[in-house]
C-alpha cells in the first residue's frame, strides 16, 4: 500500500509549488518549491482532482464513442442492407474490408458494434465518469480531505483503466474485429468465437476483450479500496457519518459493490481466458459440435457457471451505475429547492439496503436458463424487495421538491428530468422481475427500453447535471446557461422518442439482437399507432442521430467555458457542503484552512438567518442551540 507520502520529498511522492499556506511554513522548508513539469502535473499526476478530471474526460470520450457505435447500428436497423450514406465508404478503411463492404454492414460487424457498445458504455463510459471521475474530484473535497489516502494507488487505478480502454479499442483493429458475443459474453458462444484459422490465439477480439477487462477490474478494485479508506479515515473533524453529504454515502456503497462484486467476474474472466488459450473446458459441456465437427475438448464444464459468475457482478453493476447518479441528484435537488433533502436518514439507509440486496438478486437475469422453482422463487422475492428502497429514494426526492423555492438552472433541469425518467425505467422493470412475465419479454426490445431508461435518461442525465454543477469548482467559471438549455431540451425529447417505442416493439416480441431490425419477422408487421413494429425503427433511429447532434452544444460549451465562461466566486450555487469552502480550482492539498464541520449537510433556509444557506463549517451559535435545531437536516 502506498503510505510513503509522509516521507520527505526525496522519497515521497512529490513537492509542489501549490502546497497551501499552512504547510508551507510547517514542512515547507524541506520541499523543493519548483513547479511540477507539465507531465507530472497534468498527465502522471497523483492529485485526486487531476485524476478525477482525467477519468472524466476519458469517460466522456468513451461515452460519445459508444454512442457513435450505436448510431451506426441504428442505420442498419432502420434501413437494413442499404449502404450507409456519406461515411459508409470510409468505414472499411478503418475497420477492415470485412466490416462494411460497399458501405453495407456485415452481420459480424453488427455484432461487434453491439457487444462493444454495451462494454464501452458501461465499463469505459459510465463507471469511470460516475464513480471514478465524480468520486475522485468531489468526495475528498466534500469530506474535507487533502487528497485520497493512497494517491499513487489512485494514479495506478487511472492508468490501469487507460490500458484497459486502449486494449478494448485496439481489439477493433485485429483480424476478425472486436468481440461479438454481446456485452455479457455468454458461453459457450464466446468460448469458441474468434478462434481457429485466421485468428491469433491472443490478438483476437474476444481474448482482447477479456484481457482488457482484467485491467478494468484492477482499476475498479484499486479505486474502490482507495475510496472506502478515504471516506473512513480522512473525514474532516466533526464530519460524523450522519453529517456526510448524500453523494458521499452513495459513493461509499458503490465502492463496496465494486470491491466485492467485481472479483467473481474476474475469476470468470480468467476461466474464460483459460478456455480460449489453454483449452480448458470451464464453460464447455461435453459433446459440443461446431461447424459440423465435434470439438476436441474435455467437456465437463457448464455454460450456466459463466452466467452465475457474470451476473453476480452484473446486477450489483447496475447499482454501480445508478447510485452515484442518485448522489448527484440528491446534492443538486437540495441545493436548488433551497430546503433540506427530505428524509436524509431514510435515503442513507435505503442506499445501504440496496447495496446489500443487490448481491442476492442476480439470477433474475437467468429465468430462461432452466432454474427450478425454488431458486426462481428466492430470486423473485429478493428482486421485488429491492424495489422498496428504490421507491423510498425516488419518493424522498419528489417530496424534497414540495414547498421549495425551486431554481430551474441547467443542473436542476437535468435533475428534474431524471426523476420521471428513472421512474419509468424502474417501474417497467417490475414485469421483468416476475418469472412468468419475463419468459415472454426476455431478450426483447422491452428489456432494452427498460434498462436504457435507467441508464441513459437516468444515470447519464444525472451525470450531465453533475458536470454543469461542479464545473465552476474545477475551472472557476460557469458553463453557459443558454447552450446548456439547447443541450438539455433536444436530449430529453430524443431520449423519449428513442426508448418509448421500444417498449411497444418489445411487447410485439421483437428480439434485441436481430441484425435486420425485425424486417424478416411476420409479427413485426403488426401496426401500433400507425407504424409497424419494424417501421418504428425509423423514427427511433432519426431521434438517435438528432440526439447525437444535440451533444455538439455541450462539447462546445464544455471547452469554450474553460477560458470564456462567466467567472464566479467559490460558492456560486450558494451551497452548504464543504467542497464549496475550498477555493475554485483547488490547489494541491485542497483547503486553505483545514475544514471542521459543525452541522449537517443540507442546512438551507434555516429560520432566523440572514441568508438561506448555512455552510457545514459555520459554527453553531448559542441562540441556535437553545432552539434545539442543532441538526435541522434531520428534523422535518
Amino acid at each position: 500500500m502506498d503510505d510513503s507520502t509522509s516521507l520527505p520529498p526525496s522519497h515521497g511522492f512529490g513537492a509542489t509549488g501549490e502546497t497551501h499556506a499552512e504547510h508551507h511554513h510547517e514542512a515547507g522548508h524541506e520541499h523543493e518549491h519548483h513547479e511540477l513539469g507539465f507531465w507530472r502535473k497534468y498527465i502522471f499526476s497523483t492529485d485526486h482532482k487531476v485524476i478525477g478530471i482525467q477519468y472524466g474526460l476519458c469517460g466522456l470520450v468513451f461515452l460519445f464513442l459508444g454512442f457513435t457505435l450505436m448510431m451506426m447500428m441504428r442505420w442498419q436497423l432502420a434501413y437494413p442492407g442499404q449502404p450507409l450514406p456519406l461515411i459508409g465508404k470510409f468505414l472499411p478503411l478503418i475497420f477492415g474490408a470485412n466490416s462494411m463492404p460497399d458501405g453495407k454492414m456485415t452481420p459480424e460487424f453488427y455484432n461487434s458494434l453491439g457487444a462493444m457498445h454495451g462494454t464501452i458504455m458501461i465499463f469505459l463510459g459510465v463507471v469511470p465518469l460516475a464513480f471514478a471521475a465524480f468520486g475522485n474530484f468531489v468526495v475528498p473535497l466534500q469530506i474535507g480531505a487533502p487528497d485520497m489516502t493512497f494517491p499513487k494507488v489512485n494514479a495506478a487505478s487511472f492508468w490501469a483503466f487507460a490500458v484497459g480502454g486502449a486494449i478494448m479499442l485496439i481489439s477493433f483493429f485485429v483480424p476478425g474485429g472486436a468481440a461479438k458475443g454481446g456485452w455479457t459474453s455468454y458461453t459457450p458462444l464466446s468460448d469458441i468465437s474468434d478462434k481457429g484459422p485466421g485468428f491469433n490465439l491472443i490478438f483476437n477480439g474476444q481474448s482482447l476483450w477479456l484481457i482488457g477487462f482484467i485491467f478494468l477490474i484492477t482499476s475498479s478494485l484499486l479505486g474502490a479500496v482507495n475510496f472506502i479508506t478515504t471516506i473512513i479515515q480522512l473525514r474532516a473533524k466533526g464530519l460524523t457519518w450522519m453529517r456526510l453529504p448524500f453523494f458521499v454515502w452513495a459513493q461509499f456503497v458503490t465502492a463496496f459493490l465494486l470491491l466485492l462484486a467485481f472479483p467473481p467476474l474476474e475469476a470468470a474472466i480468467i476461466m474464460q481466458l483459460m478456455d480460449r488459450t489453454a483449452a480448458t473446458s470451464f464453460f464447455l459441456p461435453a459433446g459440443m459440435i461446431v461447424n459440423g465437427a465435434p470439438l476436441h475438448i474435455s467437456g465437463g464444464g457448464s455454460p450456466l457457471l459463466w452466467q452465475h459468475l457474470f451476473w453476480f457482478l452484473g446486477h450489483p453493476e447496475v447499482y454501480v451505475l445508478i447510485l452515484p447518479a442518485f448522489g448527484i441528484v440528491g446534492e443538486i435537488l437540495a441545493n436548488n429547492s433551497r430546503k433540506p433533502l427530505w428524509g436524509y436518514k431514510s435515503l442513507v439507509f435505503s442506499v445501504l439496503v440496496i447495496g446489500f440486496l443487490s448481491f442476492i438478486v442476480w439470477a433474475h437475469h437467468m429465468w430462461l436458463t432452466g432454474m427450478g422453482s425454488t431458486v426462481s422463487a428466492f430470486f423473485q422475492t429478493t428482486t421485488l424487495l429491492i424495489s422498496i428502497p428504490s421507491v423510498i429514494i425516488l419518493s424522498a426526492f419528489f417530496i424534497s421538491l414540495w414547498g421549495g423555492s425551486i431554481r430551474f438552472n441547467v443542473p436542476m433541469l437535468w435533475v428534474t428530468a431524471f426523476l420521471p425518467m428513472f421512474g419509468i425505467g424502474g417501474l417497467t422493470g417490475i414485469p421483468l422481475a416476475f418469472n412468468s412475465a419475463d419468459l415472454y419479454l426476455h431478450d426483447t426490445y422491452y428489456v432494452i427500453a427498460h434498462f436504457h431508461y435507467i441508464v441513459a435518461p437516468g444515470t447519464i442525465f444525472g451525470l450531465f447535471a453533475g458536470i454543469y454543477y461542479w464545473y465552476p469548482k474545477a475551472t472557476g467559471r460557469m458553463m453557459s446557461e443558454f447552450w446548456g438549455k439547447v443541450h438539455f431540451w433536444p436530449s430529453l425529447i430524443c431520449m423519449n422518442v428513442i426508448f418509448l417505442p421500444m417498449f411497444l416493439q418489445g411487447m410485439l416480441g421483437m428480439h434485441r439482437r436481430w441484425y435486420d431490425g425485425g424486417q424478416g419477422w411476420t409479427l413485426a408487421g403488426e401496426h401500433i399507432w400507425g407504424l409497424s413494429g419494424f417501421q418504428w425503427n425509423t423514427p427511433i433511429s432519426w431521434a438517435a442521430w438528432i440526439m447525437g447532434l444535440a451533444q455538439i452544444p455541450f462539447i462546445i460549451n464544455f471547452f469554450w467555458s474553460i477560458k470564456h465562461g462567466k467567472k464566479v466566486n467559490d460558492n456560486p450555487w450558494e451551497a452548504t457542503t464543504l467542497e464549496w469552502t475550498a477555493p475554485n480550482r483547488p490547489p494541491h492539498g485542497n483547503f486553505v484552512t483545514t475544514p471542521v464541520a459543525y452541522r449537517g449537510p443540507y442546512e438551507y433556509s434555516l429560520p432566523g438567518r440572514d441568508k438561506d444557506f448555512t455552510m457545514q463549517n459555520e459554527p453553531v451559535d448559542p441562540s441556535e442551540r437553545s432552539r434545539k435545531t442543532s441538526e435541522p437536516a434531520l428534523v422535518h
Partner: protein
Amino acid sequence: MEIPYTISTRPDTGLWNAKIGIWLFLASEVMLFGGLFSAYVFLRLDAQPGEWPHGLLNVPIGTMNTAVLILSSVTVVLAWAALKMRRYNAYWWYMLATISCGIIFLFVKLYFEWPQKFSHYGVFIKPAAREKYEQYLGNHRRDEKGLEPRIEITGHLENHEALTDPNVKEYEIALDPVNADPDNPSNDRPHFIPLPATDKVAKIEKADVERMDSFGPWHSAYFASYFTITGLHGAHVLGGVLVFLYMWLPVSKKVYQRNPEHLANRVEVAGLFWHFVDLIWIFVFPLFYLL
C-alpha cells in the same frame, strides 16, 4: 501536503490507512478466490460418475510445499515482530528466509510439479468399448463394491508418433499401477507415495478412444481448475516475493532509519497479504491433492 494517519492511527477507528486498505483488498481477494472455488464446487458436483479424477497429484511434494508456505508465514510474522523490537538484523534474516521459502515454493511448482504432469497421458475409453479393456479398468469388481467406474487408462505414452500419424492405429501406454493391476483393492484409494508407471504396456485402438490428452489443463475440469487456481495462487506468491524483496533491499533500511514504525507497518501490510496467500493454499492443498 501530508496525508493524515499514514503511520499513526485515527482516534475514532483506531487504525492507520494502509491497514484498512489491505483488509479491503483482501476482502476482494476472498471474493476472487471464492468465485474460483465456487466454480470448483459447481463443476465437481456436475461431474458424471468417474469423471472427476483422484490421486493424480504428488502428495509428498504437495505436503512439503504446504510446509514451506506455513514456515514462511511464521518467518514473516517474526520479521515483523523483530522490527517492532527494533532488531533490524533479525528482521533481515527472517525476511531472507521468507523470500527463500517463496522462491522454493515457486520453483517446486514450476520446475517439478507442473512439467511432470505434461508427460503423463490419460486415454478415455468410449463407453461401448470399456468391456474390451476390462483387464485394465477393473470395472466389474468396482461395480460390485459400489465404486465409481474407471473411464480412462493412464500412463506414459510409448509411441509418440501416434499423436500425429494417422496411420498408427494404436496408442501404446506404459500403464500406471492403477491400470496395470486394476482389481487390487489397494489401488482403490490413491497412494501416498506416487508409484511410477509399470513396464506393462497396453495397446489401445484409436477407434475405441473417445479422447486422449496429457495431464494439462485440457485434460478435465479437475485439471482445469487445478492449473487455474494454482497458477493464480502462484502469481500471488510471486507478487508477495517481489514486495518482500523490495522491503529486504537496502532501500528499505533508509525507511527504517527514518522511522522504524513506517517499515514495520509496511511489513505488516505485506505480511497480511502473505498470510492470506498461505490461507488460500491451506484450502487448495486438500481440495486438489487429497480429495
